[in-house]
């Protein structure tokens, strides 16, 4: 019995220790000079989402976002170190200083901007629900009783969670988009929350079901996320995006991965 108390006591000490350690610095604001001095830029990308980011056969991330990240490295003149992040952990990765910036299908919203700062948009997307052609869905009300998979913390999750109960939606949250789509393919869900173009990839890998975008929940734009207060880095990124938009490099990336020319992106 005494040993149990002793164990509890030591665990308490450990926990208090962690709490004290935790109350010291979170990673602070980032400047361009910090990155140049270190000689590499650490960028969080998503590697589970077709078109915007997947792990390539050579073990390197490939897709729209990784290509934008490589351009960041090119214009900064430093090598890029990739870190795989998900919708749920990209903000913790950023705030804890494990990455310099996040280029990972990061939809710009005012709620998120309370935690991180966004660059001007570099891509347009939409939060959609995708399902086989046989599934009839016209409005959110048609989702009643359906199993709808979403990547945890992604836009589809944020939009559907407040109305799931009222509308009778069986909302199922997966850790990343890959398992969300896998669940759709294996019939564990009826619809998958994803983007505008992913159904093309689905139809290539699982032909015969004719996957379609059934519902557009919200149109959104992706920005590059940095820690709040990093005005210097943010200014550089906006300049960078302005440049690659105007010299055609971003258009080339869009045509390569989205098979669409770059739309006219808004600025702020």
């Amino acid at each position, binding site marked *: 019995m005494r040993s149990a108390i002793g164990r509890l006591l030591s665990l308490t000490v450990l*926990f208090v220790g962690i*709490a004290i350690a935790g109350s010291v610095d979170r990673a602070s604001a980032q400047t361009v000079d910090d990155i140049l001095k270190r000689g590499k830029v650490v960028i969080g990308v998503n590697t589970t989402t077709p078109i915007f980011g997947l792990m390539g056969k050579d073990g390197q991330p490939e897709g729209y976002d990784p290509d934008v990240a490589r351009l960041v490295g090119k214009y900064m003149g430093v090598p890029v170190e990739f870190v795989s992040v998900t919708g749920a952990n990209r903000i*913790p990765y950023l705030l804890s200083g494990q990455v310099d910036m996040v280029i990972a299908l990061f939809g710009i919203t005012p709620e998120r901007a309370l935690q991180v700062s966004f660059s001007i948009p570099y891509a347009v997307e939409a939060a959609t629900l995708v399902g086989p052609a046989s599934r009839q869905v016209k409005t959110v009300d048609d989702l009643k009783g359906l199993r709808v*998979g979403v990547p*945890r913390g992604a836009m589809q999750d944020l939009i559907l969670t407040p109305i799931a109960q009222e509308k009778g939606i069986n909302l*199922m949250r997966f*850790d990343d988009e890959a398992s969300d789509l896998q*669940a759709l393919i294996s019939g564990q869900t009826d619809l998958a929350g994803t983007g505008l173009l992913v159904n093309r990839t689905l139809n290539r890998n699982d032909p015969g079901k004719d996957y379609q975008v059934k519902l557009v929940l919200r149109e959104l734009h992706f920005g590059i996320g940095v820690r709040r207060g990093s005005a210097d880095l943010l200014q550089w990124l906006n300049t960078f995006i302005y440049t690659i938009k105007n010299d055609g490099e971003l258009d080339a990336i869009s045509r390569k991965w989205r098979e669409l020319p770059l739309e006219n992106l808004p600025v702020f």
Partner: protein
Amino acid sequence: MSYVFQFGTVWRELDHLLLGAWLTLKLSALAMVLGLAVGIAGARAKVSSSRLLRGAVQVYIEAIRNTPFLVQLFFIYFGLPSLGLRLTPDQAALLAMVVNLGAYATEIVRAGIEAVPKGQVEAGRSLGLKPWQIFRFIVLMPALRTVFPALGSQFILVMLASSVVSVISAEELTAVTDTIVARNFRSFEFYFVITGIYLAMSLAFQALFAGIDRALFAHWADRA
């Protein structure tokens, strides 16, 4: 820039956390009971005279103990539907936990069985007991008593491993926490608190096992 803990956010979400912890407890407790049953059956088969049975159990043990739990989980949830077996996330999680624990428990219980002195088995045989009677009345209880601490830690491990079933959308403690954190970004506070909850659950299970140990096996110890 200093980090300011805001535990008020945790307090507001406490009912969600407790709901998640409840599923973790339910899954774990069921997996422990069923996993032990699989383990006892597996160990019995492992020491049986049938070579076919021994071989089958050996394949099961090697397949499970040499592959990651996460992969077994994906196999059951995403793979089995193509064979026509569609399980809900909770069912798939429980099945994966039972199958996983069963393999480890089989080896643990087998070790216990082999530690039972041969003389006792021979004594049973000379009394004219049937093989299943010898197993049930002479071998099983001393075997379980010997390996009970090892079983206990394996049980705890499976409870902790249940945290990964969030990947198939089972809403246990870790999944609930991930979902909340994805919304309010207070990751440090929430992971801090659920670490404490997991710790409390582990200690509670340990206390429970100690109680079971005393209740079931105390009188054995006197004779030993």
